[in-house]
């Protein structure tokens, strides 16, 4: 579950200068509740020894790791459908909620993995630093071999919209 404060921050409530109207509070809670109902969180994880991976999938900052866990996480198509069809306010709030929900979901996966694998790098997604966002396609199709999400090979865009591809490097044997 995402923190409400962060969800609101993402939705544009940057500070606590003003009172939010009752009507808006209702809308905020309605979307949170609906988000919980519509989200279908799924994740697929695979861990590879470093020497079995192509170089272009290993970020420079992962130097010294022995293995990398790749995972794809998604909240599913229902959320997308809602965002595309609701009015601007509701879809904007749902977009903000879902962005934080997928982050909270990733955080819980991250925690669990660290419990199992010990010392690791920070969580990392293609598109940042030296890994091209289009590598999402290779990771999802070649390493994770899953159809829970679809990646556009040319742009690296993932559908459902609220999906992420992540990787964490592990130092321990």
């Amino acid at each position, binding site marked *: *579950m995402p*923190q*409400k*404060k962060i969800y609101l921050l993402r*939705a*544009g*409530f*940057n500070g*606590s200068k*003003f*009172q*939010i*109207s*009752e*009507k*808006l509070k209702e*809308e*905020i*809670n309605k979307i*949170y*509740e609906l988000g*919980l109902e519509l989200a279908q969180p799924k994740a697929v994880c695979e861990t590879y020894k470093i020497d079995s991976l192509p170089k272009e999938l290993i970020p420079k900052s992962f130097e010294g790791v022995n293995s990398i866990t790749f995972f794809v996480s998604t909240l599913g198509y229902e959320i997308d459908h809602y*965002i595309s069809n609701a*009015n*601007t*306010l509701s*879809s*904007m*709030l749902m*977009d903000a909620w879902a962005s934080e929900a997928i982050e909270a979901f990733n955080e819980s996966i991250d925690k669990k993995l660290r419990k199992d694998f010990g010392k690791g790098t920070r969580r990392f997604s293609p*598109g940042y630093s030296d890994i091209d*966002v*289009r590598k999402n396609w290779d990771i999802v199709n070649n390493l994770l071999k899953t159809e829970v999400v679809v990646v*556009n090979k*040319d*742009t*690296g*865009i993932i*559908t459902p*919209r609220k999906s992420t591809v992540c990787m964490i490097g592990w130092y321990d044997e």
Partner: protein
Amino acid sequence: MNRKDFEELLSKKILILDGGYGTEFIKRGYKNIPAEILNIRYPEVVYDLQSEYVKSGADILLTNTFSANRKKLKELNYEETFDKVNVKAVEIAKQASKGKALVFGDLSSLGEYPKPMGMLEMDEAIDEYYQQAKVLFENGVDGFIVETMTDIKELKAAVYGIRKVTEDLPLIAHMTFEENGRSVTGTSVEIFANAFNDLDVDVLGINCTLGPEDLLKVFERLSLSTNKFLSVEPNAGKPIFDGKDLEYKMKPEIFGMFVEDYLDLGVNIIGGCCGTSPEHIKVIRNMVKRRPKKIIKEIPIMYSSRTILNKLHPFSLIGERINPAGNKKLQNEIEEFNFENVIKRANSQKNAKANAIDVNLGIEKILNEEHFKQVIIELDKHSSLPISFDIQNIGFLETALKEYPGRPLINSSKLSKKDLDRKLELIKKYGGLLIVLALEEEILESAEERLQLVLRKWPYIESKGITKDRIIVDPLVLSLAANNDPNITLETVKLLSQNGFNTTMGLSNLSFGLPNRNYINAAFLSRAKGKGLTSAILNPEDEFLMNTLNGNLLLDKNIVIPSKVEKQDELTEKILQGEEGEVKGIIENQLKEKSPLEVSQDVLGKAMEKIGDLYAQGNIYLPELLLAAETVKPIFDYLNNLIPESQNDKKAKVVLATVEGDIHDIGKNIVAAVLRSANFRIIDLGKDVETSLIIDAVKKEKPNILGLSAMMTTTVGKIEEVVNELKKLSIKVKVIAGGASMNRKLAETFGCDAYAKDASEGLKICKSWVNLNS
């Protein structure tokens, strides 16, 4: 755990209480046995549940003793188990806590209210709680909680009983309220806080009856009324009766949605009540990711009865008419426990708009404790105004205070050490405001001497833990007939006011024995009010006096209402609140005098422009702007249907598109809504739009502005493609770009006219372009 350590802990960390017991035991198949009896029959069931609560992250476990007071157990025919049930409860909770959670002794209602709401004597109620608290204390609880209390007097009895056992352990006091913020016996949240702010409890809170969403508004009222630590235990939603059982069905995740709202209001301890389970507690634990928020509130000085709460400022009017001095008949009635005329006088003063009533039963030597107990019970039963206790005998005064449900005034104490000590001890124990006379034994001659006496005694009062807002000073009013100078009193009021003291006076003393008393009293009251007098004991049924006072209050009136944004006109306010129906009503009225086009442009359009400006200036949040936009959309549509086609729309036109390959368009949609709300005409081409389609649309629509959005690094190049194509075709249009992967430098490189980091900036830029052209 001692209270200082507990206070320190609460300052650093938000603590998690456990969840429901009764509902969980029922769920686990123990429906036909009182929950507390499980302690001795099936201790493992209690142990398992409590272990689960600890595992879920509870910092405080409650002993399974909610109804284990002797009175309740007797009702259930288990009286002989009283000791065993309570002893065992502490033992089980301590084992289950495994040293990771504090164990608080749990106490609740006796099943019968103290008088007048029930038949129980207050002393009996106090003793019941004392007995249970004693067993829990002797068996090693870390603190106490009194919860699900619906009667303020019963809650007071619990606190007095527990504090008789120990003053060293923390104590949490909870009341239960309906959605309207009143308890079953008529006490409001604010009165609960007002009375208990003075009492020797560490935490005030609310539990039961309501789910987290409904309880939030009630809890907010509590949070604004106290500076004590706060706790809350909502139910798992509303109970659902399936014809056989009551069930609470709110899922832990939905319950958890509201946790942060309570944190925002400054809650220090949060748990669950009926229907909540270890799963709920686990979710609460996960949602608490911050340190406690200490919000210090400016709480006005107030006093209360069970159902009436009044502020001391700007002026408090204390009715003087319950006083049998010179009225033999009334004195006899009181002596014979006939309080009919006392009640009548209380009610007539209430009708005359007194804020409190001074209760003086006359010659105390001929009365006993029972008189004082009875008079308070009778006045409470008749929903009296708050009381000012004018009782000389210290024992009688204590009896009355013990019996009183609200926050009283105590009239009065001299500044001699002996009198002061006794009275200060009483207000520390029972709460209330103390009126102190500006004299020790002898009446001082000058105003300066009276002030100096008060100032000399003040550090001593403060050293007893009493703050200035709990003291009201009486400057002493002496009879004019005995040649006393009234100006000394007036000057004393002035000096006391200048030194930050609240003041009161017995007005009638002034004119004793003189003709036309009400004229003299009224004139003197006017003058005293002018010197800063905060309250007076007077006759509220004296019409002349009351009119004079009201005139003074009117002249002094100075009320400032803080507002979130500068007050808007009604239409703008209603739009901001999302009140679609109300907005439609205002528009319908406007249509009686103006054409649909005028209403659309000059009324609704202007209001939305104002709201757009509020947003652009950072005075409202984006979601508020979007709510406003959603609110007016159907009304604009309605007006547009009324406007003849021949009347051209002169709005500036903007074409918007998310470029090819990009399927994320939430940002672009927000920009569209924001621009629409500022009276721009928007042609939204949608997402993943090919360059050729964007060019075609620009050719066809001839907009003032083209807005392009790209989110991905892999699609951002399409913006350049569109700009190049426009140049190639010599199409003149201002291009503004945005989106997660765009930045100012990139926009310049691509040849765009502007970059906007968000909708607010986009709005400012578009407005400036349009204003330049117009």
